[in-house]
């Protein structure tokens, strides 16, 4: 279409328009009518409110001291207190749950990235017989319903005495985290030019040396994202954790949160406070890396 490549930040530059000659107002590129701007803002505000509402609601409920306050949310403003938070921190096993969650999530992140990085590099740089098959299997493991694995895994873990054991849960999570991380890291490695490997090889590095000394340091942001992804996966997983962790001092937070409803006859106020305590650090961390979370997908896609 356009043969001469226009300067890319063309939106800012003034361009000759036919405005004066025709007398009709012609909008320049990047300009919108006032109505369109108002509508865009309106749509975004509505969407933003919908996104925010359930979470704001949770925060509000966590301030109401009585477990039936969720039925009379209007009254919470008058008697708001932090008593739920102090109760959760002092009288429940919150810190033990937090500890188990952190052990499992960090373990998954560490092992997941360790294994996924080398393979991600290999599938990004080399074409070998079985390449397509491997990629296919990695994609297919995303499709594994928990139902197909949970029964045999339960039996295997029982045989290995890994039920109620952090290591067991970490291994189970790695089964899902490793394939996705491999895809993610492949996408990231694809964005690093081949010439870097070649330069390293010319300078006498072995292929493995080029990977360890040149590519891994360059891929540090990608590795961080993969680690974060595994962390989040393990952090928020419910089904395996519910089934494989039976001792209530080894619950992860996702399982512990449910126990407020079954055991203590629906104590929504404590649950809300716990939920807020969990959500704040995770979301803060999430915002730091969210831009890169899909880099693998989009980078792999747009390169064509």
């Amino acid at each position: 279409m356009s043969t001469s490549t226009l300067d890319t930040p063309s939106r800012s530059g003034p361009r000759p328009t036919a405005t004066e000659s025709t007398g009709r107002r012609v909008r320049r590129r990047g300009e919108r009518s006032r109505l369109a701007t108002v509508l865009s803002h309106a749509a975004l505000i509505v969407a933003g409110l919908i996104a925010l509402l359930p979470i704001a609601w949770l925060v509000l409920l966590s301030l109401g001291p009585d477990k039936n306050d969720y039925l009379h949310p209007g009254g919470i403003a008058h008697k708001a207190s932090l008593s739920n938070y102090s109760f959760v921190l002092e009288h429940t096993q919150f810190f033990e749950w937090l500890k188990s969650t952190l052990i499992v999530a960090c373990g998954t992140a560490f092992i997941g990235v360790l294994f996924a990085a080398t393979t991600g590099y290999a599938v990004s740089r080399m074409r070998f017989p079985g390449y397509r098959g491997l990629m296919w299997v990695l994609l297919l493991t995303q499709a594994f319903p928990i139902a197909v694995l949970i029964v045999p895994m339960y039996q295997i873990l029982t045989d290995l005495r890994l039920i109620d054991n952090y290591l067991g849960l970490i291994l189970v999570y790695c089964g899902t985290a490793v394939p996705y991380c491999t895809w993610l890291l492949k996408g990231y490695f694809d964005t690093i030019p081949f010439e870097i490997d070649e330069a390293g090889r010319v300078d006498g590095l072995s292929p493995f040396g080029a990977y360890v000394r040149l590519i891994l340091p360059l891929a540090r942001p990608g590795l961080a994202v993969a680690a974060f992804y595994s962390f989040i996966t393990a952090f928020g997983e419910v089904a395996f954790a519910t089934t494989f962790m039976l001792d209530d001092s080894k619950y992860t937070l996702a399982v512990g949160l449910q126990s407020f409803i079954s055991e203590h006859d629906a104590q929504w106020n404590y649950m809300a406070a716990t939920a807020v305590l969990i959500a704040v650090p995770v979301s803060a961390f999430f915002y730091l890396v969210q831009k890169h979370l899909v880099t693998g997908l989009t980078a792999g896609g747009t390169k064509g």
Partner: protein
Amino acid sequence: MTLAVDPPATQSREPRPGPIRRLKDSYRTYWYAYAMIAPVVVVLGALVGYPLVRGLYLTLTDATSLNSARTIGVNHIDATYKFVGLHNYADILWGPTAYDRFWSHFIWTVVWTVACVALHYTIGLSLAMLLNQKLRGRTFYRLLLVLPWAVPTFVTVFSWRIMLSDGGAINQVLGALHLPQPAWLEDVFWQRFTAIMVNTWCGVPFMMVSLLGGLQSIDASLYEAAEMDGASAWQRFRHVTLPGLKSVSSTVVLLGVIWTFNQFIIIFLLFGNNNPDVQILVNWAYYLGFGQQPRDFAQSAAYGVLLLSILAVFTTAYRRWLVRDDQPAV
């Protein structure tokens, strides 16, 4: 060793030697690649492959929690389940009450997947396009809209559950406006509606962020050229935006279908095990294996295998369809 760093698509085809020779050659040429993928192959083989084989075997037996090997205190009881061939599959697919047990859940699962992915994609794309314009407060909106993704699902689903409960916030608001107050969590239709709504809320940010990345990578000069040629806004969307998003879209839609089809946690946390009509196949299989007594391991695993086969067929077909369009996304 010679081919250690080798950009894709420079593979030359030579006449094929014999099989053993080929194996040797391929080993010599590619041992380095194989060494690098070995850890993942081993890990996946042990963590996914072995349980899968074991699960496949279970589906051919009549194992339940009553006849499996188990240890009670110090006594070890050996497994007594026996081989029943393909009986489980036949029973699930066309045994008595197969409609209630499998097909009704299957239809609901398909409806759920199509509805959720369609909503995710259209809402995600609209929001991404809104965010992709020059707009005051864009970063702020973006941060706000990613919130459902940032907060762990198991937290937000509980919040929805409180809001939708009988005397909860949403029904109070509807009551104040003199609108009907549906029983969101009890009535079958509204249960399904709720499930789709909550899942849509949770899943849109991922689509939005992915598609926004895709939109930003479309060359601005293409729009300029289209505008110069007199293309209307709709034509620019249809002939520049959509083709530009094609490869990102094909990946995220595939992932979306797979994830939604297997989306266990939302329905599990919203409705527990007690509402059979709203359970998609994954939840139903979990219910059979762990939510009831005695636990029916064999049938649960058989459902899992059926689910996996459905997805494998879908993914293969989807890839074929993409390749035919010359868009190898994966």
